[in-house]
């Protein structure tokens, strides 16, 4: 962009002229650039050719399975047949409106929370109420809803529950860990350092494995904690350990003068932290925070190793369905698109928020 404006060409004339000029300036400005441009066009053309002919030109879009036999490309009938399974897993088929409602609640909650106008302590209260509602919608056993065990929750529903609950609880926990690690009280500091370093030092898979296999060994006879809850707590602590270091980095980037100004005005530790330091520190670390959230979203797929049935696990089960010849490419492309939509959206939101906050405090 800056290069363009530096050349300061007047923007006028018909669109065609302008785009030709843009191409000349940016794509064909020298012999080397011309060669690179042509090479890239060639590569892109070949890749697109393969993708488009597989996904569109040679694909069969009908709902009928038989049509696929003839098609050489993708068989989208498969996704048509399987999407309920991918979204809801093994949730009882006549109750599918419940996980759908849960997903709508979670995603609309996220969308509303993105609006800065709603940022207040009430938002946290609303989320807690929302989580309780989602829990009962899925679990049932109240208001005449039939009970559904957590082991039957699955598909995208389970992925969303793990991810959204994970983000909602990992962030405040990370904040406490980060503050604790910077604390001057030795006991608190040591505890926080140990939690952060231990959970950052082991892979998420082993955290989940320990939560599922080892943790019950320490419980007294007869007491059991739901495996989904254990996995959820494992994910929360694991991601909080990473996020704590992100937050701590942000706090360290705040100039000493800000602390001194707050001190000399007589603000106490909590006022200084919540009114002066954190609002600035968290702003600085929006991009890496969102990165952590995105990896949390994708890492929920690891719960498959302890027998939970998330989106990826459902897909793996679906491609083994004997009714179909193995349409694994279609299935994986489909869920890749789902993952991508969520993650790309989070990434765009992070960029928007970053910009918006910068704009509002400077020229």
């Amino acid at each position, binding site marked *: 962009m800056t290069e363009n404006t530096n050349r300061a060409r007047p923007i006028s004339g018909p669109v065609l002229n302008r785009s030709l000029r843009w191409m000349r300036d940016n794509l064909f400005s020298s012999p080397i650039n011309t060669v690179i441009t042509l090479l890239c066009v060639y590569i892109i053309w070949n890749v697109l050719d393969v993708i488009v002919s597989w996904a569109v030109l040679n694909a069969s879009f009908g709902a009928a399975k038989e049509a696929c036999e003839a098609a050489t490309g993708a068989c989208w009938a498969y996704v048509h047949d399987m999407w309920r399974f991918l979204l809801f897993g093994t949730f009882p088929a006549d109750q599918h409106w419940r996980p759908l409602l849960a997903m709508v609640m979670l995603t609309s909650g996220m969308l509303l929370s993105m609006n800065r106008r709603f940022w207040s302590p009430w938002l946290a209260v609303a989320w807690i109420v929302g989580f309780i509602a989602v829990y009962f919608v899925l679990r049932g056993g109240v208001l005449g809803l039939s009970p559904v065990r957590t082991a039957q929750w699955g598909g995208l529903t389970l992925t969303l529950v793990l991810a959204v609950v994970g983000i909602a609880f990992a962030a405040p926990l990370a904040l406490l860990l980060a503050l604790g690690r910077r604390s001057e009280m030795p006991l608190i500091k040591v505890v926080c350092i140990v939690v952060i370093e231990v959970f950052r030092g082991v892979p998420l898979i082993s955290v989940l494995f320990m939560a599922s296999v080892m943790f019950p060994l320490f419980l007294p006879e007869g007491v059991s904690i739901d495996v989904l809850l254990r996995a959820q707590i494992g994910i929360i602590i694991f991601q909080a350990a990473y996020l704590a270091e992100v937050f701590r980095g942000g706090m360290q980037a705040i*100039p000493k*003068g*800000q602390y*001194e*100004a*707050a*001190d*000399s*005005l*007589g*603000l*106490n530790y909590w*006022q200084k932290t919540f*009114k*002066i330091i954190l*609002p*600035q520190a968290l*702003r600085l670390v929006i991009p890496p925070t969102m990165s952590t959230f995105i990896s949390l979203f994708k890492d929920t797929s690891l719960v498959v190793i302890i027998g939970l049935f998330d989106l990826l696990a459902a897909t793996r089960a679906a491609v083994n369905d004997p009714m179909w010849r193995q349409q694994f490419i279609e299935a994986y492309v489909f869920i890749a698109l789902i993952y991508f939509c969520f993650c790309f959206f989070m990434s765009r939101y992070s960029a928007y928020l970053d910009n918006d906050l910068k704009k*509002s*405090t*400077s*020229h």
Partner: protein
Amino acid sequence: MTEQSRLADRESVIQVKKMNKWYGDFHVLTDIDLDVKQGERIVICGPSGSGKSTLIRCLNRLEEHQEGDITVNGIELGDNVKNIEVIRKDVCMVFQHFNLFPHLTVLDNLTLAPMFVLKQPKREAEATAMKFLERVKIAEQANKFPGQLSGGQQQRVAIARSLCMNPKVMLFDEPTSALDPEMIKEVLDVMIELAEEGMTMLCVTHEMGFAKQVADRVIFMDAGQIVEENEPHEFFNNPQNDRTKLFLSQILGH
């Protein structure tokens, strides 16, 4: 002198006795004795690294001293957190780099501490804030963010922010050193006005014109010690110590 008599029967606000401070092995302040009367205007000068900023930063505990006593308004300044909080309400600091809170508007910068520390209702805090913004001639910028103001404007906001706490003593740590030359005057004008209204001020500065005009006493520091102190006319015209003479010849010589 008339200046001295003006202050003779005033009470001391700050008393420093035999204060010593080290950074590790480095002895940064040595045997500092200082007595500040109510309404007294003191300018502290000296070469860089002489400990003058460190001295005033000790007075509201932005730095810890290791030996000696500091008493503010009769309250002992030490490890006691409650005492520190009480003293900080009365002793405000204006910094070289302003240290405004960049994420808050000018108005919010001014009302934050009165609302949370002095527990003033929002409306009252805002009224006070606007009063002081008008006094530093910057009321029209109330809803802007610090990043949108010039250096001189930011420093005037910082002074107003301190005034909102209704302090008994104001510390200025090189308040004009980070400013472009054309903005120094607007900040000094505000400080002169404050001095004339009787605010107790300790000011670390190289603005000798300001010292001559408003100071009751000029303190010269070198190598962590108070080398010489006197009322401004005597200090500038008849310095006693060789180090003072050298320093004055360097900064007034050009």
